[in-house]
């Protein structure tokens, strides 16, 4: 059962990583334009070179 001492902190920190990632997306306005963002990925403007 000593494995629990490892598994529980690991699973908790993985969950926390997910939570923090979500908080980051909320704070950086990534839900302001879900429809536009889903379309922008289709753009081939920057396929050949990155945006300057």
């Amino acid at each position: 059962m000593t494995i629990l001492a490892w598994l529980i902190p690991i699973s908790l920190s993985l969950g926390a990583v997910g939570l923090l990632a979500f908080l980051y997306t909320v704070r950086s306005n990534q839900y302001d334009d879900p429809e536009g963002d889903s379309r922008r990925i289709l753009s081939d403007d920057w396929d050949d070179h990155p945006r300057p």
Partner: protein
Amino acid sequence: MTALSAAACPGCLATPVEMPAPPVEDARIALSLPGIHCQACISTVERTLNAVPGVRAARVNLTLKRALIDAAPDVSATDLAALLQGAGYEAHELDADTLAATKTDAAGRALLIRLAVAGFAAMNVMLLSVSVWSGASDATRDMFHWISAAIALPCIAYAGQPFFLGAYRALRARRLSMDVPISLGIVLALATSLWETTLSGHHAWFDAALTLTFFLLAGRYLDHRARAIARSAAEELTALEVPRATRLDHGVETEVPVAALKVGDLVLVRPGGRMPVDGEVIDGRSEIDRSLLTGETLPVFAAPGLLVSAGEVNLTGPLTLRANAVGAETSLHRMAELVAIAESGRANYTPLADAMARMYAPAVHVLSGASLLGWFLATGDLRLSLNIAAAVLIITCPCALGLAVPAVTTAASGRLFRKGLLVKDATALERLAEADCVVFDKTGTLTAGTPDVTNLHDHADALPLALALAQGSRHPLSVALTRAIRAEGIAPAAVTELREIPGYGTEGRLNGQTVRLGRAAWMGAPEDGDTAAWLSTGTGAPLPFRFTDALRDGAQEAVAALKASGKRVILLSGDSEGPVRTLAGRLGIDDWHAAALPADKATLVRRLGEEGVRVLMVGDGLNDTAALAAAHVSISPASALDAARTASDMVLLGTSLAPIADACAIARAATARIRENFTIAILYNCVAVPLAIAGLATPLIAALAMSASSITVSLNALRLGGRE
């Protein structure tokens, strides 16, 4: 919309080459782009805008169909809009100040973060709980309980704040809301669980408390989002009317915001423009359309000395006004303030959810208290009785009840939005479902505000002459006459020396005779109250062309459908008797009132309300605002004045009235669905509560009952949105 591929979008087949912009931090200009719908549109618009010198950054938001532009002060929104029109996109300027208010939805974001925290904690604690339910014992179980407590306590302290605050506010106002049993349930569950954990007991309710918080927050968030969407759409309508005016400074015209005007300023109003201030005409002759304020369709002659109010529309000639009252002092604003006082129609309405809470909350507290007391008297064991009381509270906790209303209103508002109806008020759907009488305004609501000629064929010989005189003018009657005569395929007569005399009509010469088309008084013809333009051919008596207002799209269908569904339909207009009677006859409305003043309208609506009739008021003018506010529920078209839209619960986005009848049906279906949801939630309780009182409920049963009822309720609500 999602099925459209990039290439399928008309108007933007060109491959974009230039860079899309980074996010716009400090947008000065906002444009509404109702026509964009694909990736290529985004690229083209951004490329077009970024190519303009002075534009620092431009970014399109496809969800809101809007472009935000950060530009140098010398770049004007009007030019950018014209540029985009040229590129093939419909573009309208938005008032950035009006939009700024909703730019960041801080409350929605906070709710979303709380929801995420509750979800994270619920998932982790549920994992630990599953191992306890599957047989973890002794030290392992205690450790799991302690870890659960360590996660649950801080997370609930953060995520549960909306409920705790709501409960505190309700208790301080000495009433019971749904938040009170929720908060009590959560707190009691946490307290007993913590106590159990210190005594290494079998059952802890940490997972139940967290799941409850999670589901309830989901309900809150849905509710908030539906309202935020409606609010942002309503604000966009307001922002479309950019308040600008032309000020005359010693003869020099300057374009200024309406807010910058002061009493005594000279303001130029061009034909087609709306008066920005209350004032006195000091120069120019014209006709003004007061229909939005008074409901009368007959244009009023304007000459120096006439007092005009903000909101009236100038029709034929340019007018110079001296401002008597500006901003909040204008009669338009004073009327809007009257509305705030008149707000009585819905003040005494109890939303279904509150009615439910009033019944439910005391019952829950009594049940829980009784089981605590009963078990304590029977066994003398405080720990056991507290455990059972907590179980009763958790199981009865209105988790499904919290979702019952928001899930339905979200689904129903979404469906109405697709039909072109914006629901602004949270309880508007419930109130609309109760409406049994519909009061319509005439001008601008049942009629489109564009006149139609009724007696074209009475003067067949004079039509070429009438066309020649009418086609040069922008007066609405002339425009309607031109359209009708052109449709007959008639060519204009050769009239010379054509000139428009603002406020009177058009004059010219034909075969040496002076010919005129215009007001009755100008021809020496009698005024008879009907909307008419008179034609003087130079010989004989002047000929009248009579007009009637064209019906708004879907007016006929809406009235017919409302009558078919057994509702009383009343026509209430500020216009004179003749046109109102004609219109009532056309639509088959028996109950009509003409020449009603704004106060009369409000009184009639209020009197109906006092008789127990639930009135749905549909109106667009300033003269309707008090009535809109006094009615049980109200709808105004998007073309209405800002004040009218503010006063009403719902806004029709399209031009057709047809969605009104649908909306009534959807609202009734939604209310039925809400009642069903309450029944489902109560049925679950009926099964689970006896178990809890008998002391047989375990955290596992609580978790199952809670999730199952919440999911059933949400699925039941979704049935409403799915059917088209």
